[in-house]
């Protein structure tokens, strides 16, 4: 009789089921990309009224940190040629926290800074007066032929300088500070305390027209 053969195992072998499911799982793992909305935030200036000339802003040359990028992606930072952007964030931090000619308000800001940031205040008369509004501005000027990659790299470094200052003020690392969402009052307080008195003054000039498309 044929029946006698089947006595040992009557059930269906389900062991390979796991393998099949694994295959499907791996397929989905590989093919799907989880959409991430990460990037560098930038707030554009309000639109200009064509009937009115752009407002004249009187700023001393020493209060502007000039970054120029040409169509060949070459950098000119404060009048000096730079090969790479490694040192840029440090230079910007020194510039922002220079306190060359502080007024009363910025002296109290200076006193509220942690010691590690106070050390950066070189008090160079040829660098920025103070980091508050109207004090230190970082200006990025590109060319129409500059690559977007290069532009983002520089904006990234400028942001890094600011975020590192903010983070150091509240005793966090830069990564932790950027991860703050401001959803809870405690987080919002940390964000505000980091930013207080040092606005992110990044001016992005309209690119000039040579060498682009």
């Amino acid at each position, binding site marked *: 009789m044929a029946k006698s053969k089947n006595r*040992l195992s009557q059930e269906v072998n*389900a*062991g390979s*089921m*796991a393998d*099949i*499911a*694994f295959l*499907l*799982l791996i397929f*989905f*793992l590989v093919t*799907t*990309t*989880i*959409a*991430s*909305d*990460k*990037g*560098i*935030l*930038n*707030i*554009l*200036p*309000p*639109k*200009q009224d064509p009937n009115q000339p752009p407002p004249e802003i009187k700023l001393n040359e020493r209060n502007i940190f000039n970054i120029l990028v040409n169509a060949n992606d070459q950098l000119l930072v404060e009048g000096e040629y730079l090969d790479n952007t490694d040192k840029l964030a440090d230079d910007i931090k020194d510039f922002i926290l220079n306190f060359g000619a502080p007024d009363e308000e910025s002296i109290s800001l200076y006193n509220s800074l942690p010691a590690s940031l106070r050390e950066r205040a070189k008090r160079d008369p040829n660098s920025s007066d103070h980091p508050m509004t109207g004090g230190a501005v970082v200006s990025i000027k*590109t*060319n*129409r*032929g*500059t*690559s*977007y*990659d290069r*532009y*983002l*790299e520089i*904006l*990234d470094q400028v*942001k*890094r300088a600011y*975020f590192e200052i903010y983070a150091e003020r509240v005793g966090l690392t*830069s990564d932790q500070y*950027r*991860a703050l*969402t401001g*959803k809870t009052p405690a987080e919002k307080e940390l964000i505000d305390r980091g930013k207080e008195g040092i606005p992110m003054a990044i001016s992005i000039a*309209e*690119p000039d027209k040579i060498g*682009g*498309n």
Partner: protein
Amino acid sequence: MAKFKKKTKTSENIPTSALPDIIFMLLFFFMVTTVLRENEILVEQKIPQATQLQKLEKKTLISYLYIGKPKNVAMFGTEPRIQANDVLIGTKDIVLWVNQEKDKLSEAERDQITISMKTDRDVKMGPISDVQFELREADARKLLYAAVGKVQN
């Protein structure tokens, strides 16, 4: 030899019948959480790297602009183009597009609209600044330069 055969009658294997269920649960988790792309990208997208990334909280406020060299060079040429939703648009159409996107949001959220610019790294600043100019005209001033994380050394 007969000694070994005796053992096979008793079942000694571990019950693996629950294993597929566990794997299926994982599978369903991944199937549910991943979002499949609803519109096809018509331009090249090599997203540049950056370190100082910030995450946006409210995804409903984000609208995407894709900028890059068209994939179909024979049809659209090699110059960088802008893709909104699933079509390529000209620079002048951006204001109209922004207003359409704003209409999708509720009244209170309209001025909080954020444009995520997914730009190919080979694009030059010229087209980018044109887009930014149009966005200023359309009063959509919150801008996110989409980037992927760079490994810091």
